[in-house]
């Protein structure tokens, strides 16, 4: 008897590789960024040399008018070339993704082809087959056909995205190839992007995060790529947008600053402000590179990746605004948002991103296996230092609290159907900022952690926070001088300062162990105040447990108190601290 087993054909016949060379494309973008810088220099220079001493009269008036027009025209041309350069950067980023997807499809096809070859060999080798064997062959064949079919669908999708990416870049070039376009307000903006950004709900239009999310959901994939390339400032700060979209847009802006301002620096035409922006960009680039290279402690083969969630290097007179995450904010089950304190500006981003890696590591290493993302968020104008008068008042914290609340609202809206367990962590003045954001019902977080806190701002008690007192945690190193600046109780500080000490009995939060084995015999503002996220420390261990959603497992510490008969007391002062002790201060995997 002859039995027929229909073995599916190997399809698609070919998985076509996306065309283009990402390295060469990056080089082209750099050339364009440099050209954009030159046009900006032209515009700036024409403006600068308008004032030529006491020269006056008709000739000077003519010169001034001509140089003014030249300045305006070249400024517009600079913007257009920047848009095109950003378009090339965005194209290249997408091309890299497509090339990776292509490699994955090739790998899948190789696997299917191997299965197909084995199936044919098994069929050919079979003699005197039973009904069961025939059924098994048929089942393998059906499964293989289904898998090939899925591969064809995936390949179709890949080729569609390739076409869309190329079409978008073509439109970018075509929207800027005449002189009229080059000096117009929307030179280099492809029509696809323009129509998308003008729809209701676009970021930067005053829409709520929920409306922004709905706007994004209504765009096609091609439109999303188009607005990322053409309007990276608006997408990069769009509260409510997926973090991946913000990351893509902000990386376009980062590449722009790095290439354009480096060229200006080389030309000797960079201004003092631009130099600060360039330094901010360079530090951000380092931080991102570190985050991108970081490997998961439980599976060194996995890189959780970095995300540039906020990038605004010119904000606050060059102090900058930035947020870098370790892990995927769009999908992580546990998300932490860390707000720093005084003296923090954008040049601190590298060190703080390292600390976010420590926190990620601690959370995963001692965790329940859930996915994690930890974000350093500098979205407010932190006071410059102890001598900055802003440090003594809560104004910056109050404003920062509003900004933090907006950021949290944006994160929540971006994944409303899949909410993360979200922890807001504030350090030093950032704990006051976090308190402003979290007191009352202003933000939707699950846990609040205050470390090295000089005061909880508007919250007099843990129960004043929207999360409820059981979800407010406090870390205080007994030697941390800054953490003694809050109002500790009986006598208090007569209303001066940044609010109540959250480690105190009166505040009644859950205090966790946060002593440092290298602690000094006296209080200080250095190591004792800046080691809360050090690896293998008690503090980092406990914060990791909270971020993982297991705050009930922290190692508690007795609250400080202020008796009527003497100065404030800290029961942790005499306890022997630990380091690298499992279940207490071990936060790092042996690698």
């Amino acid at each position, binding site marked *: 008897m002859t039995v027929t087993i229909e073995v599916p054909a190997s399809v698609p016949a070919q998985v076509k590789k996306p065309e283009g060379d*990402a390295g060469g494309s990056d080089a082209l973008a750099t050339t364009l960024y440099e*050209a954009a810088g030159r046009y900006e220099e032209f515009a700036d220079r024409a403006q600068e040399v308008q004032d*030529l001493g*006491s020269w006056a009269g008709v000739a000077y008036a003519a010169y001034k008018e001509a140089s003014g027009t030249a300045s305006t025209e070249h400024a517009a041309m600079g913007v257009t070339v920047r848009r095109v350069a950003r378009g090339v950067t965005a194209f290249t980023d997408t091309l890299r993704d497509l090339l990776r997807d292509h490699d994955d499809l090739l790998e899948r096809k190789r696997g299917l082809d191997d299965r197909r070859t084995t199936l044919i060999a098994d069929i050919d080798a079979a003699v005197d087959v039973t009904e069961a064997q025939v059924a098994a062959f048929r089942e393998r064949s059906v499964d293989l056909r289904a898998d090939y079919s899925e591969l064809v669908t995936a390949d179709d999708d890949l080729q569609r995205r390739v076409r869309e990416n190329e079409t978008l870049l073509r439109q970018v070039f075509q929207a800027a*190839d005449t002189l009229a376009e*080059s000096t117009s307000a929307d030179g280099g903006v492809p029509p696809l992007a323009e129509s998308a950004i003008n729809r209701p709900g676009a970021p930067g239009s005053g829409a709520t995060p929920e409306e922004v999310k709905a706007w994004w959901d209504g765009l096609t994939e091609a439109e999303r790529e188009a607005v990322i390339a053409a309007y990276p400032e608006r997408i990069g700060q769009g509260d409510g947008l997926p973090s991946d979209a913000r990351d893509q847009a902000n990386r376009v802006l980062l590449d722009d600053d790095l290439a354009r301002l480096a060229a200006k620096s080389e030309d000797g035409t960079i201004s003092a402000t631009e130099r600060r922006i360039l330094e901010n960009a360079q530090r951000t680039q380092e931080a991102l590179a570190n985050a991108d290279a970081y490997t998961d402690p439980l599976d060194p083969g996995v890189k959780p990746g970095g995300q540039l969630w906020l990038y605004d290097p010119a904000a606050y007179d060059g102090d900058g605004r930035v947020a870098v995450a370790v892990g995927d904010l769009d999908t992580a089950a546990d998300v932490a948002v860390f707000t720093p304190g005084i003296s923090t500006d954008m040049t601190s981003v590298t060190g703080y991103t390292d600390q976010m890696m420590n926190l990620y590591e601690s959370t995963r290493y001692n965790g329940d296996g859930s996915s994690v993302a930890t974000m350093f968020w500098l979205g407010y104008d932190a006071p410059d230092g102890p001598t900055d008068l802003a440090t003594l008042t809560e104004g910056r914290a109050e404003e920062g609290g509003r900004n933090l609340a907006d950021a949290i609202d944006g994160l929540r809206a971006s994944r409303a159907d899949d909410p993360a367990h979200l922890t807001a962590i504030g350090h030093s003045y950032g704990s006051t900022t976090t308190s402003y954001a979290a007191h009352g019902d202003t933000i939707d977080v699950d846990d609040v952690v205050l470390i090295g806190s000089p005061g909880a701002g508007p919250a007099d008690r843990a129960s004043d926070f929207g999360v409820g007192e059981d979800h407010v945690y406090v870390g205080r190193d007994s030697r941390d001088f800054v953490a003694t600046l809050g109002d500790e109780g009986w006598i208090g500080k007569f209303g001066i300062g940044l609010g109540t000490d959250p480690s105190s009995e009166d505040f009644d939060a859950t205090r966790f162990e946060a002593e440092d084995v290298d602690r000094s015999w006296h209080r200080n503002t250095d190591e004792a105040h800046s080691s809360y996220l050090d690896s293998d420390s008690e503090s980092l261990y406990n914060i990791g447990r909270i971020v993982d959603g297991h705050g009930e497992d922290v190692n508690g510490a007795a609250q400080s108190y202020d008796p009527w008969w003497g100065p404030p007391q800290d029961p942790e002062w005499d306890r022997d601290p630990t380091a690298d002790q499992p279940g207490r201060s071990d936060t790092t995997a042996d690698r």
Partner: protein
Amino acid sequence: MGDPLVWQMETLRRGTTAWESQEELMDATARALGGASSAALPPSVQAAATSFLTGWAGHAGESAEIARGFVGALQATADDYSTSEDAVDRQFSDLGARLGPAR
């Protein structure tokens, strides 16, 4: 502050130098854009990219011309001031020679 004319000439020279630098930068930009290749891009994009690069190399060259124009105008202004100053100086010197006890 020294001689007002010297000071004024100095500011004009400063302006001229700035425009000369810009002229050089735009020339370099024109060369960079003219020499940039679209070969790294997919074939479906290359024509648009090449057209863009050619056009913008031309724009940059025109910008260099504009900067050169400013250089020329400022130099002419400075030269005219200088020439005029010298001529008037001579006229008053001649006039001065005809005045005084020798008259």
